């Protein structure tokens, strides 16, 4: 699946987007975030210890417990500050 990173999540990861191929045991957004945190310091810094970072699956807001199966695009970003 394609992952997109925005704002300071993008800066800390060091990438705007990449292809992810998590193992089959990674079923939910929360599990994907845990898996990413273990990929390197940059991911650990981006996702931190709490749940500040938000996610969207196929361009819709999604909660940590939601399953990622079937999604083509996942995005990670800080709380929004538009408007």
């Amino acid at each position: 699946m394609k992952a997109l990173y925005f704002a300071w999540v993008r800066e800390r990861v060091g990438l705007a987007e990449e292809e992810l191929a998590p193992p089959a045991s990674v079923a939910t957004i929360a599990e994907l975030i845990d898996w990413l945190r273990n990929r390197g310091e940059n991911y650990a810094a981006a996702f931190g210890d709490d749940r500040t970072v938000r996610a969207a699956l196929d361009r819709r807001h999604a909660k940590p417990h939601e399953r990622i199966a079937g999604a083509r695009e996942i995005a990670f970003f800080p709380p929004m500050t538009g408007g």
Partner: protein
Amino acid sequence: MRILRLQKEPFELSAEIASLTAGRDVGALVTFTGLCRHEGRLLGLEIEHYPDMAAAEIARVVEEACGRWPLDGVLVIHRYGLIRPGEPIVLVATTSRHRGEAFAAAEFLMDYLKTRAPFWKREHTRAGLGEWVGAREEDAQAAEKWGS
């Protein structure tokens, strides 16, 4: 009449409102404009966005507003890129037969856009690109008051 736009360029209030109301028998018009402030130190705000999701999310929020209130027209314009102090960032306009509905819908749209539309502001100062603007707790509370 629904006008939803994401753009880099500034916009002009009267021209946008004219396109929402021209030839229509409008009784009440409410507008909200969010502007870039100088705050004694900013050269501007740099707004990053997630283009496809931003368009989809704005459309969803407008759909929700139109289901809650009998609106004749809705306009939402949100800019991205570098915005200079004094320039508009966002414009929401609603038209309706009665003012209460136009006011409620415009405020609802702003409260929802603030917490749901994927835009992120960063301060631009003499030193270059600076801090990301933090989300305000008040914005989350404002969105919650409308129920789900």
